[in-house]
């Protein structure tokens, strides 16, 4: 069943959405909207094409349409977020992961999309370009600029706080 295959991709959908919108609840809202759309239009998915790319495109559109307007940017660095992921790993590794997530949240929307698809999910350039409906050359140069911006944010802590 297609619904089962879609459900199996939920962890990756959530992770991609978290790259787009830092706040966990906003990210899951995006995934929920995307799930409703995907299941409602499952006949639009062409068998033989990649289901993950199709779902990521729906997430991208859901994010742009529904959630961007009410993004909780003001709550980005609310205190309760800071301690959420502390597990048994070292505090330093934890801090680095948080710093990267925050830095990505400060990228432009265009850059967050390419970083989310290629660096966070690990999609090949061609698949990522398909999701964004842009040529591979455009994706490559956009990804290079996004990486530069991300390196700068990570190298310069003063720019991490808006």
């Amino acid at each position, binding site marked *: 069943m297609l619904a089962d295959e879609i459900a199996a991709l939920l962890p990756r959908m959530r*992770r991609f959405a*978290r790259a787009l919108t830092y706040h966990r609840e906003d990210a899951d809202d995006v995934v929920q909207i995307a799930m409703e759309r995907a299941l409602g239009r499952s006949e639009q998915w062409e068998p033989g094409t990649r289901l993950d790319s199709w779902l990521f495109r729906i997430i991208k559109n859901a994010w742009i349409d529904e959630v961007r307007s009410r993004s909780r940017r003001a709550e980005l660095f609310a205190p309760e977020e800071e301690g959420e992921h502390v597990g048994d790993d070292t505090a330093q590794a934890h801090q680095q992961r948080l710093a990267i997530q925050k830095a990505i949240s400060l990228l432009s929307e265009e850059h967050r999309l390419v*970083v989310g698809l290629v660096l966070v999910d690990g999609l090949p350039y061609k698949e990522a370009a398909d999701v964004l409906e842009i040529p591979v050359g455009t994706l490559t140069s956009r990804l290079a600029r996004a990486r530069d911006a991300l390196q700068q944010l990570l190298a310069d802590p003063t720019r991490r706080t808006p």
Partner: protein
Amino acid sequence: MTFSDDTLMAYADGELDPAERAAIEQAMRTDPAIAAAVARHRALRADVAAAFGGILDEPVPARLQPVPSTAPASVLSLEAARAKRKRWSWPEWGALAATLVVGVLVGKTVAGGAAPAIAGNGGQVVAQGALASALDRQVGGGKADDAVKVGVSFAARDGQYCRGFVMGTSAGLACRAGGQWRIPVLAEVAPEATGGYRQAGSALPAAVLDAIDERIAGKPLDAAGEEAARARGWR
């Protein structure tokens, strides 16, 4: 040999073909700046992947899972039957059409009982006896051993209530009009559908499902809707 930073990035991302890879690996051995640039791209990719990797292990919130419908079984099975029907090929459609026996079963009896379940009445085929009584009273899909099982119920576009039913090896649609259950379509149930597992909705032949599709206004009634319609005498 020089390479653009985009090319080094693509190398670090595993996007280059073997010839390009070999050229860059050659350059990395002789040019520390190229090796450092590749290392920087690889490190960023690894760091970003690590920063989000834990999300894959989080339990997925229930609200994101595909929703199993809480609708009554007859509704579910009607939809399942429709979906299944859409995949059938034309020869199967032909075979189903051949099982159509509208009007032929006038005078048919239920499970060997004495009273006819269907009667001709001034050009109309109407339910009577056990069938009429089941159509009047049965809600929620009936019990497994009922001689008549009433499945989907709905309001038709003309405002009448209609109900799909299965009776022995026949299935049909009955619509309430003039204090009677008129039967616009009656068909033989395919043999495999009369086996051990059978729900009123899923057993409905294509001809009956088509008749439902033609008439239904909105969605089938749920159990509460059936109760309410029964309380009003299906008017």
